[in-house]
């Protein structure tokens, strides 16, 4: 293991984050209860949408479950930016950065943490949704594709917010930006309602929103089957999004000490 410092460094930083997660039972509890609250609220509030002509399914839950999985990825990416800020403010990051640890490992460890905790939430959403009668027509394969797509989305957003935390080194800009972008990212996508029910300009905006590409790739897995076209586009767009995020975060790490 010592011969592969990159893997070891990544593993070390992932384990540290997971340890913090499991040490905060209240946080872990909220993390897992949050999907339940969203599911109950949204399926009640938007129930009658299914009565509209051309709505893709007769169950809003069936429609919303994949949208919620994507929505939660957006929310949780925000949290990770704040976790990084904690390390910055307590002077931990500075001490870490003067060790020979690989910078990409620090980013990758965080990114894997987002993926692992994301998978936990996906599991919770699926279990509750199935219990309430939803189905996933593509089965286990669909779950794996969902995990990949949602992780790429989370990786890009986490990295960008992390880069912002590294530059700003203060909590206020992070709160401001995260409040500013979270809801537009979700509402300018088809996570909650189908695109055809929204005005033209919203549909145009969706084309520039990575969140929408995740929803488009994931939703058919629940409703109709593999939409390889949407999955392919999703992988390309979100892959580029994730790589761009990581490159920007690495740049921010290098400039951190200035």
């Amino acid at each position, binding site marked *: 293991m010592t011969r592969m*410092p990159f893997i070891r460094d990544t593993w070390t930083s992932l384990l*540290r984050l997971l*340890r*913090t997660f499991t040490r905060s039972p209240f946080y872990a509890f909220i993390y897992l209860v949050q999907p339940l609250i969203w599911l109950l609220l949204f399926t009640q509030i938007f129930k009658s949408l299914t009565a509209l002509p051309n709505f893709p399914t007769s169950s809003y839950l069936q429609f919303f479950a994949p949208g919620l999985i994507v929505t939660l990825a957006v929310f949780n990416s925000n949290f990770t930016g704040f976790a990084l800020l904690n390390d910055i403010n307590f002077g931990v990051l*500075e*001490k870490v950065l*003067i*060790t020979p640890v690989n910078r990409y490992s620090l980013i990758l460890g965080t990114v894997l943490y987002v993926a692992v905790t994301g998978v936990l939430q996906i599991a919770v959403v699926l279990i509750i949704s199935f219990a309430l009668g939803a189905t996933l027509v593509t089965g286990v394969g669909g779950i794996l594709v969902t995990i990949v797509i949602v992780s790429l989305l989370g990786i890009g957003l986490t990295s960008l917010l992390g880069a912002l935390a590294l530059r700003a080194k203060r909590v206020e800009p992070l709160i401001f930006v995260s409040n500013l972008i979270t809801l537009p990212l979700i509402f300018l996508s088809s996570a909650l309602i189908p695109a055809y029910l929204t005005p033209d300009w919203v549909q145009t905006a969706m084309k520039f929103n990575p969140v929408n590409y995740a929803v488009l790739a994931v939703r058919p897995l629940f409703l109709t089957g593999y939409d390889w076209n949407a999955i392919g586009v999703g992988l390309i767009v979100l892959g580029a999004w994730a790589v761009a995020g990581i490159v920007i975060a690495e740049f921010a790490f290098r400039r951190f000490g*200035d």
Partner: protein
Amino acid sequence: MGPMKNIIETFNLTKVYKGKIRAVDNLSIAIKEGEIFGLLGPNGAGKTTTIRMLVTLTKPTSGRAVIDGLDLAKDARKVREIIGYSSQEAGVDENATGREYLGLFGSYYHLDAQTIKRRSDEVLELMELSDAADRLIGTYSGGMRKRLEIATALINQPKLLVFDEPTLGLDVQTRLRVWDYIRQLKKEDTTILMTTHYLEETDKLCDRLAIIDHGQIVALGTPDELKGEIRGDVVALTLPLQEPDQQAKTIEQAKQLLTPQSFVKDVRATSDGLNVYVDEGSSAVPPILHTLEGAGVTVEGITLTRPSLDDVFIKYTGRTLREEKGTARGALGGVKPRGGR
């Protein structure tokens, strides 16, 4: 024994912030292997920026540095292997135990599991944290956090240990302990580079020191050499406390009165009075008092001392660091010699 090797050499090291603020200005310095070297200076003098460049946290704008034969710009990663860095803040992770936190750094230094265990035990012992090792850092006191923070800087047995203000904000007892640790580390052949704005700290600990002001070295030498540059005695006068403006006027008036006197070599204002530099202190006190009281300037206290690093500092920077420590000298009626150091 051959000539001592330099572990740090800098050549015109410069850091310019936002295109104009020259935090460090063409700094060239050589630090020998095995010594305790102090960078002394007022806040904002460029001490922290200098060491941040040396520990690879910040890139120099120009100039270069060689650490243990490695070029800082080209071999940053190798440099990181051999240094330990203790920052001003007690940077710790409250959600980890002391041992876990040390393990994190041991792992980032790529030590094997056995070495991490052994070194953690050693540094926990040295920092007197063995009993608290498995408690969450969130339960540690401020002094314990600082000691743990120092412990993390030692985990890789660094050849060069860099301390940024090792005792800033610590209570007296913890400060004395940290001094002991630093002396202990020197015995183990670690080179120590530290910044401080406590004169006493440099005087007690450092083999050599550099006084930095405005990003440049203004004086360099052993504490004794630097003190030796100021010959004779220092008569420190305290004037009664007044409104700041009025006090400054009185101090200036006193300075004007004393400067022309033949036995006076130099006069410098301090926060609450004046330092008068003379050849022979005891014979100078009566004429000083005579001159001042003849002009209606009341003297509240007189202290006769040998030149200290304080005086060296004032000589080179035109400022005193005394304000930051609060005025320990109060209204002392008579002549009370401070222990000459």
